[in-house]
């Protein structure tokens, strides 16, 4: 039973799986960034791009093991990114409120950006998409890690113990 439990968190022995995922992960992340950046004039957006970014990190956890993935992006980093994205979203909304418009009324951002109302709306939506993408990516990875480790996070403690 322990072999089944470790299946999702252990480093894979298969050279084909590791090579294919090593080649695939950068392209997945570039595609996710494309989806986020083109969210306001094509299908997709912050949520879908964030899910694809999260899926690329989940693939890293499955193939290269939990320890290697957490060394690249620790548990604390997930929490920081999750809340930073929400702050970006709410911050842009409150900024529009402060500048005299409604919540998330991007046209008011023209007063600090000086690029014209249409361009200010476009940039405002882009900022919100980036915030949503960060939050969704961190949340997806956190949910996956919580299921896989059973909420114990014993491996995270081991890594911190080795560093200290």
């Amino acid at each position, binding site marked *: 039973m322990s072999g*089944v*439990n470790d*299946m*999702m968190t252990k480093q894979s022995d298969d050279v084909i799986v590791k090579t294919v995922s090593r080649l695939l992960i950068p392209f997945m992340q570039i595609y996710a960034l494309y*989806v986020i950046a083109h969210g306001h004039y094509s*299908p*997709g*957006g912050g*949520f*879908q791009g964030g*899910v*694809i970014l*999260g*899926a690329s990190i*989940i693939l890293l956890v*499955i193939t290269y093991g939990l320890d290697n993935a957490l060394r690249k992006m620790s548990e604390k980093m997930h929490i920081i990114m999750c809340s930073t994205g929400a702050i970006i979203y709410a911050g842009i909304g409150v900024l529009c409120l402060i500048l005299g418009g409604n919540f998330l009324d991007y046209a008011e951002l023209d007063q600090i950006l000086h690029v014209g109302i249409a361009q200010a709306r476009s940039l405002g939506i882009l900022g919100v998409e980036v915030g949503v993408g960060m939050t969704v990516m961190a949340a*997806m990875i956190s*949910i*996956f890690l919580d*299921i*896989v480790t*059973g909420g114990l996070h014993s491996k995270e403690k081991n890594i911190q113990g080795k560093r200290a």
Partner: protein
Amino acid sequence: MIWQLDLILCLFIIICAIAAINVKDLLAAVIILGAYSFFMCLLWTEMGAVDVAFTEASVGAGVGTVLFIAAVSKTKRRSKD
């Protein structure tokens, strides 16, 4: 919209849904649910809701399947009923 294509996709969706409920192996049920999500995604695209189809493909067939497989790997693979 092509109603013949709609009908075929609906048929596949219903077959996948019934198969996912009835199969005893839970890992097989998860994979059939992924296939269900992909047919659903094709149906959304065919109806013109590309944004919904994108969400269905990335969440339903991508991350959802991975989360279900993780849950199955932490519990038993066979269902009792």
